[in-house]
Each structure stands twice: as C-alpha cells, then as structure tokens.
C-alpha cells in the first residue's frame, strides 16, 4: 500500500488535536487528509468520499465517537473502512466497548507520533519503516 495515496478522515471536536494528528500524518507522507469537528459533518464526508482510514475521537458534542463508529459499521459503504479511536477515554471497559463496536485499534491521548505511526501501520498492513 502506497502511503502517499491514502485518504484519511480525522474526526475530533478540538481543532488543536485535529492539527496535531494531521501534522503527524503529513510527516509520514499522507497527502490526502480531511477533517471534521463532529459526527454529523463526518457522516456527510463519509457518504461523499471513500476513506482508507478514519481516526476518531470519543468524547464529542452532538454525536459521540462511539455512536459514529456504530453508525459507520452499520452502513454498507464504509462498513469495512478501518477505524482508529484516538481518545482520552483510557479505562479497560471503554477500550473493550470500542473494540466490540468495531474499532480496529485504539490510542489513548496523550500520544506520540511514533505511537500513531505504529498503529496506522498495523491497521493498514504497512511495513513499520516509514
């Protein structure tokens, strides 16, 4: 898989976190990154575009990340799109809930660029040498 050809959606209600994640993705060579500040905007983008990966926060107003995740997994089109939860929710039951809802992997905030790269490579089956 060519990392430069990936299209990734970043969903987080805080612009600071969206900027941090987008900056980390650009550093590893991802060129096509969309972002959304809530679940409803994200759903609109998911209906329009096909993503290779969705990076999703949990705690968001209007529609929580876990509700968005469930919605994605019910829909035929994005059903198989891998979802990486990047969230402050750090307890074991919450991680289990996310995995049961269909999350491919999970990162607890705060995190480093190395952690994000490692998880992204694992989900997308890319060699961890980028």
């Amino acid at each position, binding site marked *: 898989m060519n990392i430069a050809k990936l299209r990734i959606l970043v969903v987080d209600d805080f612009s600071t976190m969206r900027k*941090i994640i987008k900056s980390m993705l650009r550093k590893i060579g991802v060129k096509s990154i969309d972002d959304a500040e809530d679940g409803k905007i994200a759903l609109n983008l998911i209906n329009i575009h096909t993503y290779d990966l969705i990076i999703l926060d949990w705690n968001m107003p209007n529609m929580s990340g876990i509700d968005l995740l469930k919605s994605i997994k019910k829909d035929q089109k994005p059903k198989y799109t891998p979802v990486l939860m990047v969230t402050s929710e*750090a*307890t074991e039951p919450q991680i289990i809930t996310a995995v049961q809802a269909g999350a491919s992997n999970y990162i607890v905030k705060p*995190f480093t660029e190395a952690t994000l790269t490692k998880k992204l490579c694992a989900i997308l089956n890319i060699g961890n040498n980028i």
Partner: protein
Amino acid sequence: MDTYDLNIAMPFIQATKHVLSTMAQISPTPGTPFIKKGTAATGDISAVVGLTGTKNGSIALSFSKKCAINILKNMIGDDIEDVVKDAMDTVGELTNMISGQARAQLSQIGLNLTASTPTIIVGDHHRIEHMTTCTIIAIPFSTSHGNFSVEFSFEGCHSSKV
C-alpha cells in the same frame, strides 16, 4: 486536607505532568495542593469538565494567557489561525486529556467516573463553578512559560467535613 484528598490529588498531578510532557514537551512543577476558597479563576482561560459516576464532581484547569499561548505554540507550531480561539481550544483539549488520564488512575481505587465535554471560559475575573458545593482542592503548577492550576471537587470529599 487529609490523606484521602491527597490520594485523589496524586492522579491529577501525575496526569498533568504526563499530558504536558508528551503533547507540549513541557515539564510543569507541581506546588502544594490547597483548599481553594471562592469561585474566582486563578487564570485567564479555564475549562471545566463535569464528572458523574461513583461520585459526582468536576475538574477544571485555569491557565494564564501567556502560559496557554506558549503551550499552544509547542503543540501546533506555526499552524495557529486565531491565537485566542486556538489557546481556548488547547485548554479544552488539555483538560479532556488530563481528566481522562486521572479518571483511569482513579478507577483503580474504585472511583469510576464518566466525563462531559469541556466547557471553556475566558476573560478577566471569570469564575469557575464546580458541580458540587463541596470543598475545592487546587494544585498550582509552574512552568518556564507561566503558571496554571488544576482543581477538582467531588461530593463527599473528606475535607468538606472539617
């Protein structure tokens, strides 16, 4: 302040140090926790998160403007669009992360808490209203970029009985 309150304060101290060192490459130095009187914020930009679960309560962070802007710069570099708006957003996200880390540690001592999304408050002489009328415990932090504080209040805090 009794041992129980200090046991609750420790996860907040550890979470704050961990979050700021990982996301902003800043090592804050904690001062001595104290019982805060009144609702006046100690900083210029604050964020409050409501907590429900084993106990109801809230956690708040309050930053001097200078400190918040320097942390923002460390976190996103040149990608600043509106310095005040972005600093407010950063304080909200830091509060979210510190709340999450502290709650994970508190769950290990039997306090299972769910958090709301942060409410961000800005301006001179603003107030921080906690969810309960219980004692407010504040922890001051200093950094080379300015100061901030973390405060929390839970129903049934032992100090409230003093």
